[in-house]
C-alpha cells in the first residue's frame, strides 16, 4: 500500500496540499536525515514539508516537536503567525504524525525551542514562506518586493493593492527550498511571538473537552491489559489460559516470549481477566540491597570516560594546605505521570496505525515496524497528547503493548497501564554517586576534581532498540547495556551536555577553554554502571544530579573559606550570562552577604530560617539560571517549609513569557518534590514503590513558596531551552538553605524528615561533645 501525504491529509480532514511523486513512501532507504534522524519521506529542506496554505487562506504548519502540556503548541502557533504576519486563528498546527510531519527525532532535552525557534527548521521555513509570498505578490502586481507589507494574511502594496495569501498560493504547493538566507522577523517587530498569549488549549482543558490519548476511541476497539512479571528478573514459565476462558468479555490471551497480555471487550473485563489469569514465573537473580546500593554502585566495573583532565590535579591535591572532600548521592526517581500510559493501536494485516503519546513518533514507528514485522512505510504513528511525561515515561512501552495485542486479535486495541505496572517498570531517572574533591590554598580553590558513578540500562528505544524499554525486553530484544572498559575513554572535545562539569571550571580541551568558569586545575571522570532497573531521561537527566553535587560542594567550599557563597561563585565564573543571572537573582532576593551559616536553630528558635543559592549553565549553553531558595526548617519534626524562591532565567528571546513563567513555577515545585520526598524503593526481588503511598509526591495541600521569576529576555541571543533549568537548581539551593538555617549539610536526596531529624540529632550530639 502506498500512503501518500495527500491521502493522509484528506483522511485527517485538514487541507490538502498537492504533492508530487516525492511523497511516495515505497522506496524508502534508511539513511541519515537531519536532526540525527533517519531520512524520511518528508524532505525537511522543502518548504512544502513545513507550511501549506489552503484555498481558504488558512495556514497549516507541520512540526516534529510536540506539546506535552508545556506550551509548545501555542508557542509554535505564535511563531508561524508572527513570521507570516497572520493572526493566531489563521494557523493550524499538526504535531508529530509520521504520515505528514517532518522527522525531527525526539521532542526532548530542552531542544524544541533551540531547534524550531532559531535559524533552522520550522522558523526558517516560516520566514521562507513569508519571503516567497512577497516575491509572488511582487510578480503578481509588478511592484518591487520592498513595496509590500503583510497583515492578517493580506499583503498590501505601496500603491494600496491588497492580495490575499489564497490568491497567490491557496491549495497549491510552494515548490521552493527552505532558504538558509531567509530573514526572521526581529524580536523588535514581534506582535504575537514574545507576547504572553494564553495557551490555546485552556478552555478545552478546564471544561474537560481536551482529547487525550486516553480518550481515543476507534470503531470495534477492544481493551488490552498487560501482565508484567512480578519481579524484576523473573521469566515466564507457564500460562494457564483456561483460567480466564469463562471470564466475561474475554477475547484472547497474547503470549510472546516473556510478554503476556489479555484482551477483552471492555476495559473492566480486561482488568478482571488479567487479575484472574494464572501465570507462573520463575525468579531470577536477586537485586542489590537498597540499603547499601550506593556502595554497590561505586564498586561495580564501569564504562569510564575522562570528560576533562588538566593533568595536574594530583599534584595540587597533595601539595595544598587543605583538601576538602564530600560525597553526594542521588536516588532513582520516577516520571510517575499522573495518568498511566496509554495507547491505541489498529493493526491490520498489511498496515498499522498507532495513537501514541510518545516523544518520538518516527523512532517509535521504526521499533513498531520491527515488532510487528511490517514494512516501515506501512506503519503510521500519530502523536496524541497524554498525561505530562517529563521525559521517557511508559508511552513508548505501552505503544508496543497495544500494537502487539491488536495484531494478535486483528482488531483495534486500547491499552492503559495500571498504576503498579507504570511505576514498577518505567525507565527511572538514574541513581548517582558523586565524589568531590577540592584543594584550597591561601583562601583560593586551586584544584577541583569530580568523579561520578551513574546507573544506566536501556533508555530511549530510538530507531533500533525496542529492548530499551520493558515491552521490548519481554519480547526478547536486547537493551543498551553499559560496556565496561579497562582503559578510560578520553573525550576529544569539551561538551557539557549532562552538566557533569561544574560551572566554575575553565573547561580546557583541545587548546580552547569552553567552560563557564576560570578554574584551570580540573578533572571530571564519569563511570557508567549497569543498572538493575531500566533508566532513561527524566527531566534534567543526570544534570539535576550533577548540579546538586556541584552546587552543594561550592557552598561547602565557601563555608570552609569563610566567604559568602555568592561572592565565591562570582570569583570563579567567567560566562557573562551566568554572572548576570546570579547577580539578578541575588539582588531581587535581597541576598544578605554572610560568610557562614546563619544557624537560627542555634538560637533556640523552633523554625530556623535559611537561604541558599545555586546556578547552572544548562548543558553548558542551553539556558542560564540562578535560584535563591528561602526555607524554614522545623528541627524537631525534620520538616522543611519553602518560603520564597527567586529565580533569574536567561533563555534568549522568550517566545511566550507566560508559558516560561508557568514552566519555571512548575519546575521549581517539581524540583521541591524531588528534593524532599521522591525516591524509588525495592526489596530483594521487586520494586516496592508502586503507588502514591509508597512513592511520595507533594500533594496540592503542600505549603507553596512565593515564587518570583525574573526573566532576562535577551533579544539578541539564540533562543534556548527553558523547561529544565529551574528544576535543575532546586535540590542544591534547598540543601544549601537547610545548611544556612541549621548548620546541617545534607548530601543525600531526598531530604526526608527522618534524615533531617537524624542529622539534627547527630549534630546536637557533636556540639555537646565540643
Amino acid at each position, binding site marked *: 500500500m502506498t500512503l501518500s501525504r495527500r491521502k493522509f491529509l484528506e483522511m485527517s480532514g485538514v487541507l490538502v496540499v498537492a504533492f508530487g511523486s516525492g511523497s511516495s513512501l515505497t522506496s524508502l532507504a534508511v539513511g541519515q536525515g537531519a536532526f540525527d534522524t533517519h531520512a524520511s519521506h518528508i524532505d525537511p529542506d522543502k518548504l512544502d514539508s513545513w507550511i501549506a496554505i489552503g484555498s481558504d487562506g488558512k495556514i497549516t504548519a507541520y512540526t516534529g516537536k510536540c506539546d*506535552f*502540556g*508545556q*506550551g509548545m503548541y501555542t508557542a509554535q502557533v505564535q511563531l508561524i503567525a508572527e513570521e507570516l504576519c497572520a493572526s493566531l486563528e489563521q494557523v493550524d498546527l499538526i504535531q508529530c504524525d509520521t504520515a505528514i510531519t517532518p522527522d525531527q527525532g525526539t521532542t526532548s532535552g530542552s531542544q524544541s525551542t533551540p531547534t524550531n525557534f532559531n535559524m533552522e527548521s520550522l522558523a526558517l521555513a516560516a520566514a521562507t514562506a513569508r519571503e516567497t509570498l512577497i516575491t509572488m505578490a511582487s510578480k503578481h502586481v509588478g511592484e518591487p518586493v520592498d513595496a509590500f507589507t503583510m497583515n492578517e494574511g493580506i499583503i498590501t502594496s505601496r500603491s494600496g493593492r491588497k492580495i490575499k495569501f489564497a490568491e497567490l498560493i491557496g491549495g497549491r504547493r510552494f515548490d521552493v527550498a527552505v532558504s538558509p538566507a531567509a530573514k526572521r522577523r526581529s524580536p523588535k517587530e514581534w506582535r504575537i511571538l514574545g507576547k504572553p498569549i*494564553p*495557551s490555546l*488549549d*485552556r*478552555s*478545552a*482543558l*478546564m*471544561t*474537560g*473537552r*481536551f482529547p*487525550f490519548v*486516553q*480518550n481515543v*476511541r476507534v470503531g470495534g476497539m477492544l481493551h488490552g491489559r498487560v501482565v508484567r512479571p512480578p519481579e524484576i528478573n523473573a521469566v515466564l514459565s507457564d500460562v494457564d489460559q483456561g483460567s480466564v476462558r469463562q471470564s*466475561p468479555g474475554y477475547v484472547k490471551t497474547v503470549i510472546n516470549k516473556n510478554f503476556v497480555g489479555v484482551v477483552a471487550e*471492555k*476495559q*473492566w*473485563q480486561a482488568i478482571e481477566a488479567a487479575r484472574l489469569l494464572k501465570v507462573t514465573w520463575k525468579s531470577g537473580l536477586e537485586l542489590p540491597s537498597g540499603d547499601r546500593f550506593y556502595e554497590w554502585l561505586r564498586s561495580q566495573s564501569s564504562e569510564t570516560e575522562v570528560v576533562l583532565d588538566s593533568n595536574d590535579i594530583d599534584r595540587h591535591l597533595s601539595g595544598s594546605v587543605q583538601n576538602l572532600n564530600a560525597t553526594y548521592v542521588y536516588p532513582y526517581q520516577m516520571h*510517575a*505521570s*499522573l*495518568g*498511566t500510559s496509554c495507547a491505541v493501536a489498529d493493526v491490520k494485516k498489511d498496515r498499522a496505525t498507532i495513537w501514541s503519546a510518545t516523544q518520538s513518533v518516527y523512532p517509535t514507528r521504526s521499533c513498531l515496524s520491527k515488532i510487528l514485522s511490517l514494512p516501515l512505510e506501512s506503519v503510521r504513528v500519530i502523536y496524541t*497528547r*497524554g*498525561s*505530562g511525561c*517529563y521525559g521517557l515515561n511508559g508511552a513508548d512501552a505501552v505503544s508496543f503493548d497495544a500494537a502487539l495485542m491488536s495484531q494478535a486479535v486483528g482488531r483495534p486495541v486500547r491499552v*492503559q497501564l*495500571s*498504576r503498579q505496572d507504570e511505576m514498577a517498570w518505567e525507565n527511572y531517572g538514574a541513581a548517582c554517586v558523586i565524589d568531590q574533591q577540592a584543594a584550597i590554598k591561601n583562601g583560593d580553590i586551586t584544584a577541583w576534581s569530580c568523579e561520578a558513578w551513574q546507573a544506566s540500562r536501556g533508555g530511549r528505544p530510538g530507531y533500533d532498540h525496542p529492548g530499551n524499554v520493558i515491552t521490548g525486553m519481554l519480547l526478547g530484544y536486547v537493551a543498551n547495556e553499559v560496556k565496561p572498559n579497562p582503559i578510560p575513554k578520553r573525550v576529544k572535545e569539551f561538551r557539557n551536555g549532562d552538566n557533569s562539569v561544574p560551572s566554575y571550571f575553565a573547561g580546557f580541551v583541545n587548546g580552547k577553554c569552553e567552560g563557564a568558569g576560570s578554574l584551570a586545575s580540573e578533572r571530571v571522570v564519569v563511570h557508567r554502571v549497569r543498572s538493575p532497573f531500566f533508566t532513561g531521561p527524566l527531566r534534567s537527566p543526570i544534570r539535576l544530579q550533577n548540579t546538586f553535587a556541584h552546587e552543594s560542594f561550592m557552598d561547602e567550599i565557601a563555608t570552609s573559606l569563610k566567604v559568602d557563597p555568592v561572592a565565591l561563585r562570582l570569583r570563579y565564573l567567567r560566562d557573562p550570562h551566568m554572572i548576570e543571572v546570579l547577580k539578578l537573582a541575588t539582588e531581587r532576593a535581597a541576598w544578605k552577604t554572610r560568610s557562614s551559616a546563619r544557624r537560627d536553630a542555634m538560637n533556640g528558635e523552633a523554625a530556623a530560617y535559611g537561604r541558599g543559592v545555586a546556578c547552572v549553565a544548562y548543558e553548558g549553553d542551553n539556558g542560564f539560571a540562578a535560584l535563591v531558595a528561602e526555607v524554614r526548617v522545623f528541627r524537631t519534626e525534620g520538616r522543611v517549609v519553602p518560603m520564597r524562591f527567586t529565580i533569574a532565567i536567561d533563555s534568549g528571546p522568550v517566545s511566550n513569557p*507566560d508559558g516560561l513563567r*508557568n*514552566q519555571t*513555577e*512548575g*519546575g*521549581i*515545585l*517539581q524540583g*521541591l*518534590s524531588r528534593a524532599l520526598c521522591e525516591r524509588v524503593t525495592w526489596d530483594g526481588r521487586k520494586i516496592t514503590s508502586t*503507588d*502514591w*503511598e509508597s512513592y511520595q*509526591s*507533594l*500533594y*496540592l*495541600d*503542600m505549603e*507553596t513558596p512565593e*515564587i518570583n521569576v525574573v526573566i532576562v529576555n535577551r533579544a539578541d541571543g539564540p533562543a534556548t531551552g527553558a523547561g529544565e533549568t529551574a528544576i535543575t537548581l532546586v535540590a542544591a539551593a534547598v540543601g544549601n538553605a537547610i545548611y544556612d538555617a541549621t548548620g546541617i549539610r545534607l548530601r543525600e536526596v531526598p531530604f526526608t524528615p527522618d534524615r533531617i531529624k537524624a542529622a539534627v540529632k547527630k549534630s546536637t550530639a557533636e556540639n555537646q561533645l565540643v
Partner: protein
Amino acid sequence: MKTISIKVNGQTHQLDVDPKTPLLFVLSDELGLRGPKFGCGLAQCGSCTVIYRGRALRSCVFPVEAVGEGEITTLEGLGTPEKPHSLQQAFIEEGAAQCGFCLSGVILTAKAALDEKPQASEAEIREALGGVLCRCFAHTRMLRAILKYAGQRKS
C-alpha cells in the same frame, strides 16, 4: 450484565454493564466523557473525580451499581468552553494548568469544598485538596484561581 440507570450531567442513561464496573469506566467508555480520567485506580490521586450528591467522589473505586438515584456531574458538566463555570473561568484566566490531566480532581474537589463551606479559609481550601495530585506542579496558579473564585462567591 445488568441494566443500570444513571443520571450524568443532567441526562439519564440506561446501560447494560457489569454492576461491579467502576463508575469511571462507565463514564469514559460507555458515555465517552473526557473529564474524569484514570490515574491510579486506588483513590490516591483525584484524576477520576466527579461530583456526586454534592461531594467530590473518586469514581475509579466506586462501583456503578452503587450510584442509584444520585446525580453525577463531571468536569464537562460544570461548564462548556463557550460558557465555563466561574471556577473554570478563573482557571482559564490564571492559566492554572500544564498538561491538565489532574483538572477533574483539582477543580471538582475545590468546587465541592466551597459549595459545602463558601467561607472556607485558604488553609481549609488547601486541606480539602490534600488528596489531590498534580505532577506538573501548577499548584501556585491553581490555588490562585480557586481563591479568586472563592472571593467572587463571597462578594
